[in-house]
């Protein structure tokens, strides 16, 4: 048995020597060639399935060597044996010549970089398409080529354009609304101003005629009547102060501001002096840092200081000895002005309401006021590019800090 199989393998070997072995019987370049050609056909089939355009271009002449069906469709190429093949620039547009020439002349180490270009085409049917082209170098059969792959990005580009358009539209709408809002704000302010202004005349006649009643009809009224007229006059004064406040608030946001160099120290000194004069009996110590300056509108800044110093004066009236400080400090390279008092202070939980108009923290029986002053101050500070904030503690005192963008440094 063993001998027989040995004999069989000897026979096989001998057949091989005589060229009758399986492998050498199979040897044929044609079958190899056929297989390779089938592979090539398969590759071409795959390339033609791609929707992208794939072009092979000779690097020296830039003329088209080969392309897939996708390229024929995208670039509307027609194979015609009589006409020379189109060049890359004819296909994608002559306007790309410069960038391609530059890319081709790049140094050796950059030669692996591919080049991306966006091109546009209007097809014969009138359809406008956007194409993202990616160019890379390749050597086939010792000849330098460019492989150019084109991807249709029309849908993406159209979406981008639509998005840009809607952005622009939105922006326009916002602008329009802002303009409308500014307009109605202005109208509102003008209204507030004229109302306040026009209210003064009738108010003055009420107050004036009240005084005439008291002076000329003194003997014809009983004491109760006189008392009523006094209440009426007090109401008139209160209303007058309210009108002043509304006018100040209105002024703080209207009209031009004139920036000039201001001597804050002496401005504050004058205001404090006036306050002393109104209540000479109070024991008040003021410490005003000398040489404080700023850049600002003199009228508005004065209003501002009047309010802040006035508040400090007013809300510390219940203390036997009042202390008011005005000065500056540097924090993070910024000049911060502060006005500090040892008055009744406020509850920090209510700090947000402090700068809102007509929102008072105290009742009239505690302290007189109309709740417009700090709102006005805030608007003035903000018009000067600064900000204002407050710290307080009930029964201990309050500190108002503010900055002015145009603030001059302490000399």
């Amino acid at each position, binding site marked *: 048995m063993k001998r027989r199989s040995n004999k069989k393998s*000897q026979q096989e*070997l*001998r057949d*091989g*020597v*005589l*060229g*009758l*072995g*399986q*492998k*050498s019987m*199979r*040897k044929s*370049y044609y079958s*190899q060639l056929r297989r390779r050609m089938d592979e090539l056909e398969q590759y071409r089939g795959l390339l033609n399935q791609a929707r992208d355009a794939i072009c092979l271009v000779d690097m020296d002449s830039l003329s088209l060597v080969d392309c897939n069906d996708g390229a024929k469709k995208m670039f509307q190429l027609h194979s015609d044996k009589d006409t020379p093949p189109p060049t890359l620039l004819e296909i994608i547009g002559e306007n790309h010549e410069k960038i391609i020439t530059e890319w081709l002349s790049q140094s050796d180490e950059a030669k692996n970089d591919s080049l991306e270009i966006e091109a546009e085409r209007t097809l014969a049917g009138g359809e406008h398409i956007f194409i993202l082209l990616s160019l890379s170098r390749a050597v086939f*059969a*010792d000849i330098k080529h460019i492989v150019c792959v084109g991807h249709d990005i029309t849908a993406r580009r159209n979406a981008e354009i639509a998005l840009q358009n809607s952005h622009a539209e939105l922006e326009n709408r916002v602008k329009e609304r802002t303009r409308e809002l500014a307009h109605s704000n202005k109208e509102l302010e003008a209204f507030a101003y004229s109302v306040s202004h026009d209210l003064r005349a009738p108010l003055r006649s009420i107050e004036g005629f009240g005084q005439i009643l008291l002076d000329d009809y003194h003997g014809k009224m009983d004491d109760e009547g006189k008392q009523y007229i006094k209440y009426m006059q007090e109401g008139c004064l209160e209303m007058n102060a309210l009108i002043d406040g509304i006018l100040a608030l209105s002024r703080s946001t209207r009209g031009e501001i004139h920036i000039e160099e201001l001597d804050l120290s002496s401005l504050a000194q004058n205001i404090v002096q006036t306050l002393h004069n109104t209540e000479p009996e109070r024991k008040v110590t003021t410490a005003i840092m000398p040489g404080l300056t700023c850049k600002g509108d003199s009228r508005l800044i004065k209003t501002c200081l009047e309010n802040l110093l006035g508040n400090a004066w007013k809300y510390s009236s219940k203390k036997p000895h009042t202390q008011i400080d005005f000065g500056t400090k540097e924090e993070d390279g910024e000049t911060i002005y502060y006005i500090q008092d040892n008055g009744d202070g406020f509850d920090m939980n209510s700090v947000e309401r402090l700068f809102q108009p007509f929102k008072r923290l105290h009742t009239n029986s505690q302290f007189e006021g109309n709740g417009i002053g700090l709102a006005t101050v805030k608007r003035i500070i903000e018009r000067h590019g600064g900000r204002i904030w407050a710290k307080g503690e009930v029964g201990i005192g309050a500190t108002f800090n503010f900055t002015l963008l145009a603030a001059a440094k302490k000399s």
Partner: protein
Amino acid sequence: MSSLLSSELRKFVAPEFVFGIGARKQVGQYAHNLGAKRILVVSDAGVKKAGWTDETVDILSQEGFECTQYLDVTPNPKAEEVMNGVNLYNEAQCDAIVVVGGGSPIDCAKGISIVAGNGGKILSYEGVDTVPFPGAPLLCIPTTAGTAADVSQFAIITDSSRRNKIAIITKSIVPDVSLIDPQTTLTMDPFLTACTGLDALTHAVEALVSNAHSPITDLHAIKAIELIAKNIEKVIQTPDDLMVRQNMTLGCLEAGLAFSNASLGAVHAMAHSLGGYLDLPHGECNAILLDHVMAFNFKDAEKQFDHIAKAMDLEVKGFTTQQLRTSITGEVDRLRRSVGVVRSLGELGVHRTDVGELAGKAIQDPCLLTNPRPAIKRDIEVIYEEAL
């Protein structure tokens, strides 16, 4: 002429070849036909010195081919020489091989072609019908009329780590084109001329008596014996006679066509073993062994030996079988001595103690498959001992 003895199939494969003075100058045209651009030119130092390599490279360069020369090929080419050539072929991105030289560069080039087309290591292709795909295109310009490696299906590579020669036998490695130009044989020295001539005679004799011979191979083998017997002494006496050189070259080609298709026999099996074991020159080993093996084979191929006697122009009319055998082997022995191949195996350095191992390797050689008389190891040992 004998008719086919059995119903066995016979196949005949030969490369396209151009024979004649100036044939080598067609190399440019044929390289174009192979679709080549970058060519590995395989040769060796001796052939380079004779000028044939540079002439070929010049022609190819003028035709616009890029040539890379590979000259590190020794007689009995080694596996690592093949692999180095493959690396060079791949590095230079070659697409064809042109070999200029004798049996060694051609066998090396065949090895490079196999690996370039199929990958792997050359030693893994040892044996018969082992190469699955066509190798790199191979164009031969033989410069020694003898081995006929340029038309044959044989490649012999030395595995130096095993001190062994491996044979790769397959029609896949028959070269694509051979440009056989007798002029290139003019630069061979007398001893090399004698050895290659006797190698060719061995090819013709072994193909003729092969148990796979056929009418077609017989035609070539008989013509080869005629040409070589008539011209081998003349070529030694008048080495510059181009007509004699042409006859010898034609004889070698005819022998090559015969043995490449009918295969060989015990002489080559035993010579391969000697070449691998002691790195002895192939042609000389064949020459020493030939008459001994002929004597051994005689009674199994008497009819074919008649053709040999006729081809050698021996007067054998009325001879007994015994007389015929002695006459033929005597003439073979006389021819070899006459052309200056006089040493015995013993004088080449083969010792009686080597015989066992030599025979052991020879018995494995595929050439033995077509020897007319089946031989066992002891038979081979006896032949070696006779030739010592």
